[in-house]
Every structure is written in structure tokens, then in C-alpha cells.
């Protein structure tokens, strides 16, 4: 199987789905000739024309709102937010509209929309080009939210998202774009929304997370296995809404020691819900308090390199936390 970059997997998913289904189109800022500021939509306008790879005015509420209208009309829009930091102007359209259209119309109308938005830091983007906005949208019923960590999942989840009959927020990690490459089948396959994946098996500690920090966890796990004989069980949530309850509980029960990781800040993050689910269901199977390793409760990372590094998770921080938990 070909090994491709995470960003290539996203691009390929859009391209193949646009070839397969003419209702699919992508709209956003600079997605046309430029192919997106990261290059995610490169080539789509050349192949599919100006309407299906549509440069919009600089107005995120309209990008979402127009896409919602088109989705209700039967199209399958993919709305790109240039950075997830810039999707907040579209919050009302996403939360008040996309999320509630099916419910409020008692199933008469629906909104099969994908909103793609790059999350995460580590690119010297500073406060407003690095944020993780998951916690803002997490907990809004009616939305599905996915956040792939691998190229394979990125393609498979994006296909599922496009085909899903409800609105899906697709949080792609901009640091993964070119850092992460893995085997991706050519052609069609889907990864189901709502199902987590065991990335690594182990019996000593369980790490639960999503997106970029899992790669640090995997690296740390290899080192811990080699150096300390500690075997980590690592679960990739992949979908953060709806959470895969069974997957979470199974992974937690496996070792009884749970570390939850994400790059979004700790308070009010997805990790809180994962911890709450475990403490609701599995309290007596735990051998250690549930720990969370997340970004600090600070607006976002500074642009200066030491500050950014200080803010972000990395392999060493993961390793220390994992070892500490193993030794508990």
C-alpha cells in the first residue's frame, strides 16, 4: 500500500469523492487557484472548475451559512475554515443552525455538511494560528466531530464525513499535514464515525487521546517498552463526538490506569468527559486516579519558540507522565 502524507490523504479524499458524487464541492478562502493556504485543495479547481472549488469572500459565517443552505438543498458541501481559530465567526451558524436543523424540523430537513478546520500548534503561529477549538463545539448535540491522527484515518473519516447525513466537524491537525505519513489504500474505503481504534496494545497503562499528541504517546511508548519494560495501551478516539463509550471503557479496564491526552487546554476539554465516563462506569476497576495531560489553561501558545515549546506537549512530557502513572 502506498505511504502518503496526512495532507495528501485529505486532498485525495476530497478529489475522489468529488469525482464520485457531483453534489460534493468545497468552498472557503483561497481554496481555488491557490489550493488553500496549506495546499489541501491543490488541483481541485483545475480539475473541477471554479464553482466546485469555490473561493469565497472573507466571511466565515457566510461560508458556513451558505454551505448549510446548499446542504439543505441537497448538495454535499465541504466548508473549509482556513484555520480553526477563524471558525468562531461561524459559531452561530454551526451551533444554532447546522446542529439543530434535523431536530427542529422533526426530521423534515437535514444538513449533510462537513466543516474542515486545521487545529493545533507547533508551526510558530502564535495565539491565533494554533488553537484547538474542540471544547467550544464539543457537547453540542446534533454535531459530529472527528479528529484523525493518521493519514489512513484522515481519508477514511473524511469520506465518512462527506457521506454522513448530518453535520460533521472535521478537525485536521496542521502539524500532522506533512509530519505524519502512513499506508493509505488507493480508492474508496471508510472509517466509521464514532469508533475508536487501538493504536498499540499493552497491559500496564492506558493512554487515551486524539490527533497529534498520540504520535508523541506512540514514540514514548516505544521508549518505555524498550527502556523500562512498561507496555502502554494506546487508544485513538478518532471521533470525539459521539464518543466511543465502549472503546473507552474497554481500554481503561484493560490496565486500570488511565492517562488522557490532548492539545486543547485541560479544563473543559474532551478529556474531562472521557474521565467522567470512566469514573461513572469503571470506578472500581481503576488502580490509579485518572490523569490528564493537556495544554495549560492559557489562551494559546505564544509565537516565540521557547514559549511555544513550553506550551506544547511532546514525547518527553508524555513519557514522563506515562512512566509516572506506570509507577503509581
Amino acid at each position, binding site marked *: 500500500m502506498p505511504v502518503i502524507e496526512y495532507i495528501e490523504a485529505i486532498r485525495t479524499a476530497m478529489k475522489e469523492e468529488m469525482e464520485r458524487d457531483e453534489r460534493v*464541492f468545497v468552498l472557503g478562502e483561497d481554496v481555488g487557484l491557490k489550493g488553500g493556504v496549506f495546499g489541501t485543495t491543490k488541483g481541485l479547481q483545475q480539475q473541477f472548475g471554479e*464553482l*466546485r472549488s469555490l473561493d*469565497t*469572500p472573507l*466571511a466565515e*459565517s*457566510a461560508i*458556513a*451559512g*451558505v*454551505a*448549510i*443552505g*446548499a*446542504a*439543505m*438543498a*441537497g*448538495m454535499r*458541501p465541504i466548508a473549509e475554515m482556513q484555520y480553526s481559530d477563524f471558525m468562531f*465567526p461561524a459559531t*452561530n*451558524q454551526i451551533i*444554532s*443552525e447546522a446542529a*439543530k*436543523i*434535523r*431536530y*427542529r*424540523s*422533526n*426530521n*423534515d*430537513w*437535514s444538513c449533510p455538511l462537513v466543516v474542515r478546520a486545521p487545529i493545533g500548534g507547533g508551526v510558530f503561529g502564535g495565539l491565533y494560528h494554533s488553537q484547538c477549538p474542540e471544547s467550544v463545539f464539543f457537547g453540542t*448535540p*446534533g454535531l*459530529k466531530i472527528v479528529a484523525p491522527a493518521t493519514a489512513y484515518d484522515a481519508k477514511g473519516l473524511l469520506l465518512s464525513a462527506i457521506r*454522513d*447525513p*448530518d453535520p460533521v466537524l472535521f478537525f485536521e491537525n496542521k502539524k500532522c499535514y506533512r509530519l505524519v505519513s502512513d499506508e493509505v489504500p488507493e480508492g474508496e474505503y471508510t472509517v466509521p464515525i464514532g469508533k475508536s481504534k487501538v493504536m498499540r496494545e499493552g497491559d500496564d497503562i492506558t493512554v487515551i487521546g486524539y490527533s497529534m499528541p498520540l504520535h508523541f504517546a506512540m514514540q514514548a511508548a516505544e521508549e518505555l517498552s524498550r527502556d523500562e519494560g512498561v507496555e502502554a495501551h494506546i487508544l485513538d478516539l478518532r471521533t470525539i463526538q*459521539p464518543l466511543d463509550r465502549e472503546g473507552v471503557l474497554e481500554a481503561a479496564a484493560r490496565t486500570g490506569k488511565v492517562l488522557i491526552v490532548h492539545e486543547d487546554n485541560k479544563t473543559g476539554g474532551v478529556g474531562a468527559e472521557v474521565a467522567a465516563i470512566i469514573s461513572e462506569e469503571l470506578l472500581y476497576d481503576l488502580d490509579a486516579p485518572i490523569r490528564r495531560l493537556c495544554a495549560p489553561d492559557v489562551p494559546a501558545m505564544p509565537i516565540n519558540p521557547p514559549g511555544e515549546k513550553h506550551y506544547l506537549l511532546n514525547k518527553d512530557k508524555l513519557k514522563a507522565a506515562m512512566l509516572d502513572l506506570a509507577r503509581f
Partner: protein
Amino acid sequence: MTHTHSVKSAPRHAALGLTDEQAVAMYEKMILARKFDERGQLLQRAGKVNFHISGINQEPSQVAMAFAMDLKNDWFLPYYRDYAFVLSLGMTVKELMLSLFAKGEDPNSAGRQMPGHFGAKRLRIVTGSSPVTTQVPHAAGFALAAKMRGERSVSLVSFGEGSSNQGDFHEGCNFAGVMKLPVIFVCQNNGYAISVPLSKQTAGRISDRALGYGFPGVQVDGNDVLETYRVFKEAHDRALAGEGPTLVEIVTYRVTPHSTSDNDLVYRTKEEVEIHKAKDGIPAYRRYLTEAGLWSEEQEQELQARIREEIDEATEYGERAPFQAVEDAFRHVYAETANGEAI
């Protein structure tokens, strides 16, 4: 925009391309909406329903705009005062009553949403919400879909003048303007946004805003049924001809309090309201039909009786109908599979 009423011999409505039957049907829809609305107020006062929001005095222009549209192909994104509009699109009084009583059979939302939150796919009426102006970019989205699919379809979206100050108005209009989409933006300027008069909403003229988006803006007297029809017909023609959007500002006046929860005499005078009530477009239109030989006192009485019966029946039906079963209250957050599970 200037215009002249050119054809001398033919009556105004015929010159505009309206048949006698249509001209009469428009009148009937206005009366139907007015009577439904008055019943809604009564029902609320009688404690039979919790809440009613009224479109009284805005019916003439709402009917006119509906009659200028293509009911088979266009998309409609009304706002909460658009009873006369949706009745003209084919919603029934019974359906409106089911919504007013928040009953399960209500096609708009099965009694989940407040009355005035319209939506019915079979009538191409797009589901709406309470946060104002969100529907404006949706209308552009429907028009974009039509353009992509090569369909001859126009979308019409309406909202109040207060609501035209939301960012979504600007973003939706500009998007439609730059892509020359077939959208008609309708601002029903009734002078108030709850208690806030136009003078505190904006120092500009709403219709002038179109200029900044590169398409025409027209102001029209909402009490003048046929002129309003003409303006919408023209906007519809422009849209179908690929000439892009039009912004229509209907100048009207809200003669009722904002809703049954509002006491308007805290912020305006009875006299002010009376002045505007006197300008009601319905009697004027009735006079027009009478003078054109299309309407008589007998017809009026027959109509009033028919409508009273229709509304009585609908009221009774609505009142008796069951609420949505509580077991179903939490359904349809997401699509369900055939066996009722969420996918």
C-alpha cells in the same frame, strides 16, 4: 428605480400579468391570514395557547411577494411574521393551528418550535430558527445549489429591518452579490424591532445597502399590493435572467405589540399606531377589486363565512390534536437507520 404604470386601458393587475382569479385569490389569502392572526391573538388572550406573534398589517405585501414566485421551483425562507406568505405558498390554516398549539402533527416542527417558525419541505419552505438573520446566507446557499445544478430556481428570504443589522445580512448579501446568485432579499421594515424604533437601528436606508454589494435595492410601500407585486416580479425576472440578487425593502408598520408578551405602550403611543392602522392595505385592495368589477359585498360575506368556518375547524382540530409523544421528544438529533437507531 423609477417606473410608470404604462398600460392605460387594462386594469393594473392585468397589466402586471395577473389574471382576475389571481387578483381575487390574493385578496382571499390576505383575509385568511388576517383572520388566522386575529384568532391567534384571541386564543392567547383566552389562555388556550401561551404565545402568539402577529403579522397583522404586513399581509398585503407578503401575499404579493408569494404570488410573484414560482411555487414549483423556488425556495422560500420566511421569517416569523410571514403567515400570509406561507399561506399563499400552500400551508394550511390547520397546519398553522397545529403549530400554534404545538401539536405533534404540526408539519413545521411537530410542536417543537415556537409558532411562526416555518418549515415544510413539500412546500419548499426552509426550516427556520429564532436567532434572526441566519436564514440570509442559507438563501444564498440554496441559490448556489440551483446555479450549480442549472435549475431555474430563485430563493426568497425575508427578515425584519432590525435583523438587517446582523452580520449575516451583510455576509449573505455580499456572497450572493459577488456570485450573482438568484436571491431576493426581503426586508419587511415595520418600523420597530421589539421596542427599538428604526431611528435607533440605523441611520441609513436599508434599500441603499444593496449598492455596496453591487445589486439593486428597491423600497416599496407594502400597503400597495400591486406595486409590491410588480417589484417582486421584476426581481424574480432579474434572478432568472442571471442578473443576480435584488434587495426589496417593504415599508410597512407593526400595528400589534411585538408579540403577546410585549406591552408596546411603554415605548410608543396609541396615536402613532392608529395612524398606521388607518393605512391598512387590505381595504384599499378590496376597493381596487370592487372597482375592477371583481369583488362584491356578497362575495365578501361568503368569503368571511368560509374563512370563519375554516378557522373554527382548524382551531378545534389543533386544540384536540395530541402533542408529540414524549418518547419521541428526543428523536431526530441525528439521522436514524431504518430500525430507529442513530447512525
